[in-house]
């Protein structure tokens, strides 16, 4: 392990802790897959050759790769938690002093937090611990009418008796973290309403997208290019306020932001080095099983989650709100960061929020030891995937967010998404090839 830490240290660039909000600067293709997007940070992929065996370090082993993977997991949840805490603080500042400026800052903090979280998602699917809390953190789609007011044209999940409950306006119970947690998980069968609410998975009461709705409101596409346009005065008490029940809405926003921090704290504990929870279980597994979990996570995220659930379905339905971040119209950011995260896990790198980079034993280097041709094909594929993802991000930033990209009449937008899906599929096929050679990789 020592050589890994030493290696990580070599790449810890002491970049100035600029306010590295991922969206603060538009990501150009040239910035590579740095989650900070800061040009002060060297792109992880550019550093990768330094981690290769010829740098004098002993050849990478499967054991080293999965140990480093666990460290990366911890680093990414630590960043996600840090960003969620900033969101919480920003929310509190906004609620203390609501204004256009503090509201805008809160929305920026939300986007930053969600982008940082997106880098943890390739840990899902492979690691079964994740699904214990993931639904509390990042669930979508949601029937937002459960929480707050919606437009008359709101299309609810009509099998859902609570889809128009508007708990902020109509609920009688004081809003706190415990209550909105119970609404979503229905843990107590004696409290019949909460079980009935949680029976419907679109009754999402917590997590990034519930907060997103509380900040942006519904995306009514008026004008067509706009995202949700909730006024900050929805959080102003008294006559100057809007939306009604402002005090309960303030309570809800505050509680939801607090719960997010709680949930991510829980996630981080799972991966604590030398901890007693999942990291210990993981470390005790045979190395082949750990490699299996790592690659299954990358591949499932790549094709199952991103290309299919988040893109294919949107293409088939052309449904404007068939997107993950439908209130803020920032789905292109989520896609870009998810895709970046798959590559950076493969390359064993992580760019921290302060711009420093951790690198170490990578799957890339391991595959290269076994089969340089396969590693080359993956490299070439990542370049192609990245090019398509960059274009999606660029168009999103230029006023063509994901819901407009997949619109039935947007031929070039749909072609772009189709191309990106094809690249993700090809990438998954290569990851599957790697997966098929786990036995060989562990013998190296």
């Amino acid at each position: 392990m020592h050589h890994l830490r030493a290696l990580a240290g070599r790449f810890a660039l002491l970049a100035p802790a600029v306010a590295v909000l991922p969206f603060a600067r538009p990501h150009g293709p040239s910035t590579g897959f740095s989650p900070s997007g800061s040009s002060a940070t060297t792109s992880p992929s550019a550093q990768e050759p330094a981690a290769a065996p010829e740098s004098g370090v002993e050849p990478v082993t499967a054991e080293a790769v999965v140990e480093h993977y666990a460290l990366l997991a911890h680093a990414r949840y630590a960043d996600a938690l840090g960003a969620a805490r900033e969101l919480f603080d920003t929310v509190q500042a906004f609620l203390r002093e609501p204004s256009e400026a503090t509201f805008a800052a809160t929305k920026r903090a939300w986007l930053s937090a969600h982008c940082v979280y997106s880098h943890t998602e390739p840990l899902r699917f492979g690691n079964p611990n994740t699904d214990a809390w993931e639904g509390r953190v990042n669930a979508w789609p949601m029937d937002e009418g459960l929480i707050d007011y919606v437009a008359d044209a709101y299309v609810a999940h009509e099998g859902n008796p609570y889809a128009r409950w508007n708990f902020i306006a109509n609920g009688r119970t004081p809003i706190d973290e415990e209550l909105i947690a119970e609404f979503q998980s229905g843990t107590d069968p004696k409290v019949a309403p909460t079980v009935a609410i949680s029976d419907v998975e679109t009754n999402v009461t917590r997590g990034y997208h519930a907060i997103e709705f509380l900040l942006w409101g519904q995306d009514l596409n008026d004008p067509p290019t706009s995202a949700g346009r909730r006024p900050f005065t929805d959080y102003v008490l008294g006559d100057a306020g809007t939306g009604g029940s402002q005090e309960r809405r303030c309570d809800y926003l505050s509680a939801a932001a607090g719960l997010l921090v709680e949930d991510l704290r829980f996630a981080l504990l799972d991966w604590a080095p030398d901890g007693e929870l999942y990291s210990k279980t993981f470390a005790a597994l045979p190395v082949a099983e750990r490699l299996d979990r790592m690659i299954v996570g990358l591949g499932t995220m790549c094709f199952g989650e991103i290309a299919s659930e988040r893109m294919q379905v949107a293409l088939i339905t052309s449904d404007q709100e068939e997107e993950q971040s439908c209130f803020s119209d920032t789905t292109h950011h989520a896609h870009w960061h998810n895709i970046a995260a798959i590559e950076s896990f493969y390359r064993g790198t992580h760019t921290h929020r302060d711009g420093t980079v951790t690198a170490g034993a990578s799957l890339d280097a391991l595959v290269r030891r076994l089969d340089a041709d396969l590693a080359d094909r993956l490299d070439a594929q990542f370049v192609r995937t990245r090019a398509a993802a960059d274009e999606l991000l660029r168009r999103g930033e230029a006023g063509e967010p994901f819901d407009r990209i997949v619109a039935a009449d947007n031929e070039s937008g749909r072609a772009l998404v189709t191309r990106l899906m094809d690249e993700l599929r090809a990438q998954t096929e290569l990851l599957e090839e790697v997966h098929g050679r786990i036995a060989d990789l562990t013998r190296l």
Partner: protein
Amino acid sequence: MRRITRSHGALPALLAGLVCLGASAEVASRGSDDAALTRERRADEVLAGGGTSVVIPRQQLMDRGAFSLPAENLALVRRGDHFAGNSFFQNAWVTAPASAAARDGLGPLFNTMSCQSCHIRDGRGRPPRSDEEMLSMLVRVSLDGDAVSDRERDPHAGVVLEPNYGDQIQNGAIAGVAAEARVTIRWIEEEGAYADGTRYTLRRPEYLLEDLGWGALDERAVLSGRVAPALVGAGLLDTIPDATLLALADPDDADGDGISGRVNRVWDAGTGATAIGRFGWKAEQPDVRQQVAAAFNGDIGITSSLFPTDGRSAAQREAITAPDGGAPEVSDRILDLVTFYCKTLAVPASRSLDDPVVQRGQELFRGAGCASCHLETLVTGDDPAFPELSGQTIHAYTDLLLHDMGPGLADGRSVFDASGSEWRTPPLWSVGLVYLVNRHTNYLHDGRARNLEEAILWHGGEAEAAKEAFRALDAEDRRALVAFLRAL
């Protein structure tokens, strides 16, 4: 108890308490002692669904996700269709015409708006509690009895349709169309006693139809409730060869064990021919794809290439002129995605099978003859389109055959070759996880059983001897047998 249990501070006490109500009183632990996190088979974990099975960590069971995982052996590139299918399984269909054109065409008559609304968390539906609407079950209707001739049987539905209401009561309708009825249940209770004198109460439903929207109900109409079953393992059952079922069948009880077992022969909408039925409470559908299409059609009012007309009676076809959502309303692409999703869900591994109490229960289960119909082991055939389902040794605890279950369970509804007292053996795999996923323990076709004991006590007919064997057990052995079922 075998296991040294240890609750962890990070887990709310409430959750820990919940687990105690679940399988064999295990306390959830998130610690490293939770070796269930390994996918390697342990003595107490049997991969019920063969290579598809997932060993689920206990904390994940808490979050109601046990029935919603992709098959363990599903290739990475095949997970795309699984995830996309899940999306269409979950999302609601809307009234046509709508901007979301791929998902319009709801109704005009329907029971629900999405698959997930009844198959809650891919799990089991239940009868409404006192003041609820009927949400995750429905009521079938047909004409049955001596005054009905077999010749009137609809060749596709396999039943004699009620002239005004077809073969199920649809309690929902789009705007401008009358729903068929509001359905409520009255429970009739009856008392019984175990051999040791312990008393129990069973309940059976009586259905009351109010606000009939389409005229009087024929006096020969028979009503029978159907809760949505859990989906796990359907793909594996779909892959069991017909020859296996035919070999298991013993229609004339040639071996004299008191248990016959017949295959149902049903309509195959894809081929237009007769096929062996294996899905539905009376084995009235031949495969998962047709089962999905039939549910789209009857329950959501969505047409497909297999069922090109909305599920409604002739009278309703005449009267309703609402626009449809295209022909067909669900494309083959989406139908195939949903089918793929249903077929590739993982069967959770069994738990605690090395617990002495559970093992005692398994012996009692076998000794009572339960395993004669709830067959422990089957081997799937070969389906080139589904390599992950092929050649799997599975523990589904079903023979997929029809058995006469006696007058207590008889609903008087005959479907194709299934009589009014015959039912297909439902699989028992994952039956112990229903509580954790669905927060209830209502079993049998209409959810009348409030726990596993009641479900057993309703058995009769060919299962009379098995039921009597259970009734004769003392309390400790009854608990052991139920502990075994909860471990599945």
